[in-house]
């Protein structure tokens, strides 16, 4: 996020009116590990530092480190929860939120994080993830069943057109629930969810995908055979890096790929035990134990039978 000078000045004023230099340094350390205020300002340890000086330096540093939103999120948590049993009020927090909103970012009360306003822009990292940041994400992985055969039988052009349709379906299911498609290759896709109830959102997106594909195959599919997928959802910690290949090597992503390839039947969505534990009963009850031997996954399919 590009931080305007007026917004940085508003934050500086807000900080020195609310916190002393020690507390400001504490907050900065939560977003920039090992942050040393005196080293950065050149102030010797025996001279007391004014909050105004500390605030000015810290704001400049978080802006330089592109951690402005992260710092505001930390302040919002301090304002909401206090620190070590003591309450803190951050003056002008509402005005800061308003100014950030005007820059195209929305506040997600569920996670306490800002995200880009999807009406303005939709980027791969919600306009705010930074390299190395550790987050708990939910992933929806899909695999196109018999992808190579589809290309071989129907030709590259027809297959590409069908995959574009699938991408559109996935995109609608994922993005309306604040998720992002992180990869869409010939054989499958990966979508990530961070905001709101991210595991629930990823599961609902997966269910929606299964439904939409059911209708697509009946109404719009022109390749002469159904386009079929296996989908799976898993949640866990991830260290964010912009290269998707690197993310796919991390444990959480490896597990979602394993759930999809080992435990998920065709035309179905499976969820891992980590996901199942977070779902509301009304959604969880739609899933049944997987039929594969040794499966720990729960599986959702469309159940349609005679009246």
């Amino acid at each position, binding site marked *: 996020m590009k931080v305007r000078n007026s917004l940085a000045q508003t934050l500086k004023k807000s900080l020195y009116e609310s916190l002393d230099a020690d507390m400001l340094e504490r907050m900065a350390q939560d977003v920039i590990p090992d942050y040393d205020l005196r080293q950065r300002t050149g102030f010797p340890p025996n001279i007391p530092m004014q909050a105004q000086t500390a605030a000015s330096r810290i704001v400049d540093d978080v802006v330089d480190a592109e951690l402005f939103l992260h710092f505001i999120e930390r302040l919002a948590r301090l304002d909401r929860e206090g620190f070590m049993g003591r309450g803190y009020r951050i003056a002008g927090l509402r005005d800061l939120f308003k100014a950030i909103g005007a820059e195209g970012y929305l506040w997600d009360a569920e996670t306490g994080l800002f995200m880009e306003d999807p009406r303005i822009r939709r980027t791969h990292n919600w306009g705010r993830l930074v390299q190395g940041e550790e987050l708990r994400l939910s992933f929806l992985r899909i695999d196109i069943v018999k992808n190579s055969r589809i290309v071989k*039988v*129907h*030709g590259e*052009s*027809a297959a590409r*057109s069908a995959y574009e349709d699938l991408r559109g379906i996935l995109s609608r299911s994922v993005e309306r629930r604040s998720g992002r498609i992180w990869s869409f290759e010939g054989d499958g896709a990966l979508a990530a969810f961070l905001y709101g109830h991210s595991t629930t959102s990823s599961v*609902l997106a997966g*269910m*929606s995908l299964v*439904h939409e594909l*059911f*209708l697509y195959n*009946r*109404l*719009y*599919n*022109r*390749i*002469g*055979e159904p386009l079929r997928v296996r989908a799976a959802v898993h949640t866990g910690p991830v260290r964010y890096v912009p290269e998707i290949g690197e993310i796919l090597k991390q444990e959480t992503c490896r597990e979602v790929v394993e759930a999809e390839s080992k435990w998920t039947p065709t035309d179905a969505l499976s969820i891992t035990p980590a996901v199942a534990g977070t779902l*509301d*009963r*009304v*959604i969880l*009850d*739609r899933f049944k134990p997987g039929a594969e031997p040794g499966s720990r996954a729960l599986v959702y399919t*469309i*159940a*349609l*039978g*005679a*009246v």
Partner: protein
Amino acid sequence: MKVIICTAEAEDKKLASFAARSFPSSPPEIVLDAAFSRVCKKKAASALVYFDGSLGDKRILELAAKLGEVDLCAWGVIDRAGSLPDPASYFFAGACDYIGPSLFKSGLDACRLDEALVYGGLAEEPSDDACEEEVPFSGWDALKEGEEAQVRFCYAAIGNQKNLLERIGEKRLDKLKEDFAAFLGPWSKECGGIVWIKESSGCLLLFPPRDEGMNPVLASFRLLLDRALIGYEVFKLEVPLTFRFAFHSGHTSWQKPGSTGKIVSEDVNFVFHLGMKAAGDGYILASRETAGAVPPTLSDLFGPAGDFEGRSLIASNKFRD
């Protein structure tokens, strides 16, 4: 009625345009020759199949011969360039339709399609002047009070209300019914319809006699498919939600919504009875009169469902939880 067009070319814009012009309410499935040979027994049942002239005379007759083993199937030929050598030979081989260059350019109208279906044994002979009677629907605002209107009725209701009453209580159930009726407003509008009568148990919706926008049976089917998502994301329910739908085609004297207290109509009575007494949760029930409203691509999911008040019914498969 399901319509399939079998062609040799994958991306044929002229053919796609013809299909869109001729079958605006339910686009036919366009299938390539290679795929059709494999799936024809499964797909062509209860369908009208058009073979595109691009396949060539010999191949058309080969593929048509395969349809002989398929139940309730009829076929025709699209000859957009007028290049096929002997159109009569297709009728000798059992075809029910031939679309030459000028008809390809203008597109089929509903009457022509009906004629082909009747000739192919896929539909019953219509009354003498059924096609002449049909006039385009001019919109709800254009109807005058008391005017007789031909419409498609849909009774839509929250399903399993007894269980919901126990789980969420009377007050929340009443609110849910109100919210559902409000939800049906924009939902029916996408199909050119309106919420006409709101009752405590459900709502009566009206749709134009022909599709204007989305097909209402397809829209209902989609709502049943998405019932878990709608219950959770739209109505914020922590208990399962389902719906019931009953469709019927017929006539009523027109009154604006909110002024419908004195309507006397056999068809209105029938659809209320159908929705309240015969329909069930998780599927669509329809009178035979509405069978034409079922999109061809969903028709294999519908089957006979007995009689009710002297009318034969069809029902969709049921979504199970």
